[in-house]
């Protein structure tokens, strides 16, 4: 069977029959080429979208969620409705204990974030109002902070010693420091208190309320400076990778309701934002897109391959006499069939390979165009080599199957009838 593949005559015959009708062959090949092109571009593009979404979320743990206190809506345990709830520092260990799926819990407190004035920050003759966050070092496990070289984020020693250190934003740096000045090690005044700058964080878009001027100081320092006691504004949390984030969110609220003596059905006492759930929905959407593009691509390939089968059927009909001559000269039905199937697979594969090249080319262009647009959820559109191989395999398979029809037709006619054909 494979002898035919390596014989020059086989190829001479295939090219002979292709050359007889170049335009028709070209148009047919374009059918399959278009199919694989659509497949590659669509699945690459949807992978790009997928990567893009992932990039948007890369600053935060994908299964993170945030919980804050609001007002109660149901009277309970002697408390009237509308009670102001307040999260406390010991809720952290309580939650860790009660909700085992939680990996990290970072208490946060801030001013100038949700309304209210920011801290007044001064350095030399320059000043401004900036949001200031009191944070635990663990925060970076939940929402990563890119720190410029030479600096660092807050650490446990800062916390333990209630150090007056801060991490400032890119904008804060440009507004308070000279261009050629290195802020690390220098001091700025936050609400009349001197803080040493230990790091500058890179700002990256991607939603959330933080921005490029935020100042982070140790939670313990914040508590002391602003006299906030054990109050916590909100918790940033991350569940383990395999945890069901929706269930975890429910457990957290239920636990907090018990601790803070809130009616179990009170939906307003604690507010939350479940990034994990949003992320899952977006992932679901992009997986759906990916799947859709696979289906559309494969269906288009199929349509193209059917076109090849159709054209071979016509070509076999036109070559009836030639095939009759071959059979008179001793070609067995199997050899005739083989020739037509090889022709079918060859056309399909050539079309497929050109389609893959063109598709990759278009993906490369899309990639180049979207490379420096970080706001657009699109990154690195790729098609795994496995998928390309599957597509090629599919084409060989379909090419063979579809080639069987004209091949069978070619041998079903008696040699003498084939020879009589004009």
């Amino acid at each position: 069977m494979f002898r035919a593949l390596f014989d020059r005559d086989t190829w001479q015959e295939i090219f002979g029959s292709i050359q007889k009708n170049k335009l028709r062959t070209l148009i047919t090949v374009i059918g399959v080429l278009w199919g694989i092109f659509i497949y590659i571009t669509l699945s690459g593009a949807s992978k790009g979208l997928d990567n893009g979404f992932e990039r948007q979320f890369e600053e935060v743990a994908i299964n993170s969620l945030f919980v804050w206190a609001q007002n109660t809506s149901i009277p309970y345990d002697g408390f009237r409705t509308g009670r102001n709830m307040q999260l406390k520092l010991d809720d952290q260990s309580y939650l860790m204990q009660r909700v085992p799926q939680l990996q990290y819990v970072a208490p946060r407190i801030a001013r100038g974030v949700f309304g209210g004035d920011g801290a007044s920050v001064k350095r030399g003759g320059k000043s401004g109002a900036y949001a200031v966050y009191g944070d635990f070092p663990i925060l970076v496990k939940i929402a990563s902070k890119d720190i410029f070289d030479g600096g660092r984020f807050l650490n446990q020693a800062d916390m333990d010693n209630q150090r007056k250190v801060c991490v400032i934003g890119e904008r804060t740096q440009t507004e308070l420091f000279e261009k050629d000045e290195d802020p690390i090690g220098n001091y700025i005044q936050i609400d009349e208190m001197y803080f040493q700058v230990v790091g500058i964080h890179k700002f990256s878009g991607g939603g959330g309320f933080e921005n490029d001027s935020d100042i982070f100081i140790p939670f313990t320092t914040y508590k002391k400076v602003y006299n906030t006691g054990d109050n916590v504004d909100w918790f940033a949390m991350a569940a383990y990778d395999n945890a069901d984030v929706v269930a975890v969110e429910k457990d957290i609220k239920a636990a907090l309701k018990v601790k803070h003596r809130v009616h179990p059905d009170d939906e307003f006492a604690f507010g939350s934002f479940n990034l994990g759930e949003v992320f899952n929905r977006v992932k679901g959407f992009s997986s759906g897109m990916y799947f859709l593009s696979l289906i559309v691509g494969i269906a288009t390939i199929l349509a193209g391959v059917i076109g090849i089968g159709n054209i071979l059927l016509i070509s076999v009909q036109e070559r009836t006499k030639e095939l009759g001559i071959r059979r008179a000269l001793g070609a067995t039905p199997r050899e005739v069939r083989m020739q037509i199937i090889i022709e079918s697979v060859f056309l399909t594969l050539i079309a497929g390979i050109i389609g893959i090249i063109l598709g990759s080319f278009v993906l490369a262009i899309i990639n180049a165009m979207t490379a420096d647009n970080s706001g657009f959820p699109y990154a690195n559109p790729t098609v795994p080599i496995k998928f390309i191989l599957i597509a090629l395999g599919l084409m060989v398979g379909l090419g063979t199957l579809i080639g069987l029809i004209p091949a069978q037709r070619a041998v079903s006619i008696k040699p003498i009838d084939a020879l009589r054909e004009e």
Partner: protein
Amino acid sequence: MIKIKELHKSYTMGQNTLYVLKGIDFDVREGEMVAIMGSSGSGKSTLLNILGMLDTADSGTYILDSNPIKELDETKAAIYRNKFLGFVFQSFNLISYKTALENVMLPLYYQKVNRKERQARAQNFLEQVGLGPWASHHPNELSGGQKQRVAIARALVSEPKVLLADEPTGALDSKTSYELMDVLQKINDTGITLLIVTHEEDIAKMCKRIVHLRDGVIVEDKKVKQVRASSYVE
């Protein structure tokens, strides 16, 4: 070489059945050169096609070189055609996109002979029919006589025992026809059995035996004194 007995063949078209061969008994010995004659519709081409295994008979026996040819599947028939038989057709039946040499090489391809040997043998046979210098020409660059010689070379290249020719001179002028018959006679001289279907009296006389068919039966089967075509060829 060939033995047929009670060979019947009919074609059904709609409700009408046309009986083409009505019980043919016919033997051909090795080395014979037989002309099958008859008017059109007499069944001569049908007989040749059945002998060439391009068509099948309805009933009767056919033995080719001691092999009973009955109920052969297409694959076996193809192998027999390739091994025992060579064909020459009135309309040449060359493949237009192949050169003369490539056309002659084709039967050897199906014999799984390697390309180099195919080329050498095909070139040799083209030279034997006087077309050595035309090897690289395509059929449309050749005259009718040349095309038929290519067809003969192609029929001979697989070294068949029997050469079947269906009106080989039908498309040629008389001078070219005689040249071609000269070639065929020389082939017969080497011991290859020849069966030639023709309706031309002078061509038939260049064979050693003439079989007349009329309405599907043999009406005459006689040995004749062979006229050498070379006497007509300058």
